[in-house]
């Protein structure tokens, strides 16, 4: 029994040091009003920063909306591009396949800001800078490879036999896709969407270059505060930003579980 206790204590200690301790000053700082060194707990608790962030005329909700809108459009485009691509890469062997894979997965290795800085002047000429469309286009290449990868994993466990069977039972191409392929790919799509949203939300540099400060996402709004602004407001924004990312992932997870529960209920009834 003793080693098990040792493992449990060590794990708890690791969780405390890595997962809880780092957030304590962030939370305290967001509730502080002039937090004097060396007090561990601020002398007075104030909701001033939260009031400013959530209800003040600080454009928070607009930034949240813009961030989520961009992440959503990027993710939808990614799904539309990635499903056929993943199908081709998993189910076929053809000439030049390695090159196709290299092209699609290149943005994982080569930092996307290199491409964005290069294309900046061209975007400027086309009138795409300072627009949400431009930022969406800039966010596509850093996110698409992860979406393709996630859907490829789902395709690997989907046998062609299933679709053939559906075809034998008289299902046309549309119903084969919506009733057989799509439900099987769904976990992969959700995993890819989570990554795509997370990466899009946390972009700072490429949003800043293409948006030129006019497309204000949460990371653009946050930056001036965390690089030497009011620490209480910076902390409140940071918590909001982190919370938003976590809630989006959590929400997708819950949706997927609900979908499976519903499906189970339907099949049980049938």
């Amino acid at each position: 029994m003793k080693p098990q206790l040792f493992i449990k204590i060590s794990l708890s200690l690791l969780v405390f040091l890595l997962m809880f301790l780092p957030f304590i000053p962030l939370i305290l700082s967001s509730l502080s009003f002039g937090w004097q060194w060396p007090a561990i707990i601020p002398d007075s608790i104030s909701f001033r920063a939260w009031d400013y962030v959530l209800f003040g005329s600080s454009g928070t909700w607009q930034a949240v909306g813009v961030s989520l809108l961009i992440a959503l459009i990027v993710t939808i485009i990614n799904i539309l591009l990635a499903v056929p691509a993943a199908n081709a890469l998993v189910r076929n062997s053809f000439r030049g396949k390695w090159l196709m894979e290299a092209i699609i997965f290149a943005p994982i290795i080569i930092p996307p800001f290199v491409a964005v800085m290069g294309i900046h002047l061209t975007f400027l000429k086309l009138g795409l800078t300072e627009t949400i469309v431009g930022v969406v286009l800039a966010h596509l290449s850093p996110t698409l490879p992860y979406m393709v990868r996630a859907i490829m994993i789902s395709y690997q466990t989907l046998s062609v036999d299933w679709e053939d069977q559906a075809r034998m039972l008289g299902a046309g191409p549309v119903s084969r896709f919506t009733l057989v392929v799509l439900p099987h790919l769904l976990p992969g799509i959700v995993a890819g969407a989570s990554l795509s949203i997370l990466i899009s939300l946390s972009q700072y540099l490429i949003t800043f270059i293409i948006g030129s400060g006019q497309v204000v996402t949460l990371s653009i709004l946050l930056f001036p505060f965390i690089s030497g602004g009011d620490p209480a407001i910076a902390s409140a924004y940071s918590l909001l930003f982190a919370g938003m990312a976590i809630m989006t992932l959590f929400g997708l997870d819950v949706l997927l579980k609900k979908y499976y529960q519903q499906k189970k209920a339907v099949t049980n009834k049938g």
Partner: protein
Amino acid sequence: MWQKNKPYLLLFPAIGTIVLLFFGGLFDGFLKSLGYFPALDQKDFNFTAYRELFRSSEFWESLILTLRVAFLSSLFAAVLGAIIAIFLFMMKESTNGSNSSIWYRLFQLPLTIPHLVGGYIIVLLFMQSGFLSRIATNLGFIETISEFPVLVNDSFGWGIILTYAWKEAPFISLMIYPVLSRIHSSWRDVSRVFGASRWNYVREIVIPVMMPAWTIATFIVFVFTFSAFEVPFLLGVTYPSTLPVYSYQLYTSGTLADRPEALAVNIILASFTVLLGLVVYAVNKRWNALKGWD
């Protein structure tokens, strides 16, 4: 005809997007790094930007800093990530898998935190008047703010290293844990029959098994920290700065003459990551690293 061209047609939208937006951008940047600005009536190619860069001490210092930060970050993340993965694995083994998934999920938390927020968390913890300095003072280790070491916005890059070690360790454990969980529980029993202690078992079985995936994951973290912008921008100093920050400083300096140099830094950075990427690919192919074994 249709059957033969089908995969290409299915791939066309995705490939087209990446080629146009990503490789187009790389190529565009490459031309401009050679001084080709048709809009400014500069249509000849030259290597002035590269020559200037290689001559400036700022570039070399920036390169050294970038390599040092990337090396130390991936090293610390690798050690911490392996510790987490091994503890998770031992936890799963001793409880037969029940409730170990909760632990597993808890450790993924830093992965979901945006990089800027992760950097700010490190600022609040480690700056000279930060949380750890307050704790140290109350415990009587130090008496004045200046006694606490400068770990944030320091020229060595400790703040950047700490942020990446914290944020990337869960990534490393996430990459090696699946390999570890393929170790059958009967192997532990067999090793016990041969008289191996728990530590022998970890050293002789667990570590060799996770070695390939561990190497790959560490390499990936190295490539990422080598080319990332946000954290060094927030936690570094203006001089010397890491290569991505240096490129950004040149790009936004205001004079158009610096832009080819910024893009030249980018091209060097990109070539370096491609080189590292090829190493990762070769190692993975040789060892089948991310699966463990067949």
